[in-house]
């Protein structure tokens, strides 16, 4: 599996570390809503198909990435910087 890093180009998956599901949103730290915390900590959509997920190019430029990857085929369908601001004006990977 190759992951197209916007900085480094297509690199082997062994250079990256997986950071998991990117669709979770942390509740307000002051929130005492146990349902919301339970949902954030434990529950996942776990789709069979396109999955939005974080990876870090830990063995390369160390940038955090947001991938859309098909969990049925391992095909990487889209890649962007995890920090949205970095994507503006960035060249194509």
């Amino acid at each position, binding site marked *: *599996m190759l992951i197209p890093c916007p900085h480094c180009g297509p690199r*082997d*998956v*062994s250079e990256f570390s*997986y950071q998991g*599901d990117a669709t979770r949103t942390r509740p307000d730290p002051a929130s005492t809503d*146990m*349902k919301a915390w*339970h*949902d954030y*900590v*434990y*529950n*996942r*959509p*776990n*789709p*069979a198909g396109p*999955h939005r*997920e974080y990876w870090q190019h830990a063995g390369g430029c160390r940038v955090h990435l947001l991938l859309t*990857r098909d*969990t*049925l*085929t*391992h095909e990487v369908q889209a890649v962007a910087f995890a920090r949205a601001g970095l994507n503006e004006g960035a060249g194509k990977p």
Partner: protein
Amino acid sequence: MAEYSALSLLKNALTGNRDWKPAWRKPEPKPSYDVIIIGGGGHGLATAYYLAKEHGITNVAVLEKGWLGSGNIGRNTTIVRSNYLLPESVRFYDFSVKLWENLSHELNYNVMFSQRGILNLAHSPSQADDYIRRGNAMCHGGGDGVWLTPAEIARKVPGVDLSRSARFPVIGGLLQPRAGTARHDAVAWGYARAADRRGVDILENCEVTGFLRDGEKIAGVVTTRGEIRAKKVAVAVAGSTSRLMGMAGIDRFPIESHVLQAFVSEAIKPFVDCVVTFGGGHLYMSQSDKGGLVFGGDLDGYNSYAQRGNLPLVEEVMGEMVAMFPAVARLRLLRSWGGIMDMSMDGSPIITGGPLPGMYLNCGWCYGGFKATPASGFSFAWTIAKDEPHAVNAPFTLSRFERGAVIDEKGQGPTPKLH
């Protein structure tokens, strides 16, 4: 129905093996059943068997989307053990080992359960302390655990690299003598035949595509072979639990699906006669009766429904194998494959009624489902028949994540990478 004996072997050999009868029927789906079990793997088939045998419920269908035994029951590394720390796990898995001990006799089908023991190698003083604590917990829970010194390991498993110059020198090991291996396909076939004989319909190539509802209640399933109604619908589809739950309208669940690879080498002469695990990384291996070394390691580590993995993990597992057994460095790999693991958020399974009315759920086996097959089937059947959990599966609820009552063997917190 197929009967196996020395006489039948001889008789069929003389007639060119043309007259063997199928071990189970291939019935057409009935319009309705008392219980439908989705998933014709080890756990689903065992559940059907114990429903029929223990509770007299025989109007049961097991729905399998492919052919029987095509999922994880035929993809695992066949290890049976109960070397756990927490009392809930020790009780459940030791109950399973006890069922394994009588399984061939009970099913009248040789599942080749071999109590050859499992040896966990320890490579640091803190790991040794951890293993000895776990061994004590196993003994306390009525199981068996023995601490072996390097000299004892050298006698038991001569192939292990015990030199002080090893990358991770071995300082001892925890042995569970009653652990072992079993023939995984035979477990599926044995339970299938035994359930079939008690009247259970095994419907292969019957994929569930949706649920029928009666108000809020689940009242049956839509399948590729038509609609089938049932009073109770049980789900035992580890690996695909989230997909099934999605069809029932539950789109968030404490499960992630991950790929786990396994490997078998070319056959060699008897080399190791127990299961050995490597504590310097994560690897477990045993030698099959055919002579191949059967082994596996960690998850690939990313969400996946593809029944195949990638090469970095293969390289890691081979590296660990050679670190542990330098003598196998030039062996060739015969096959490798992948299976989809239902990774729960605390590393423990879920066996419970619900989450919807009329539904029963068995999932979250991470990569330790094979050894649990008998106890899982037994306690799931109990839960379905009596609408209350058996003592051994009572702690393995779905609500434990909300209540903070997780069963986290590693004490590591919520992550879908435990086992």
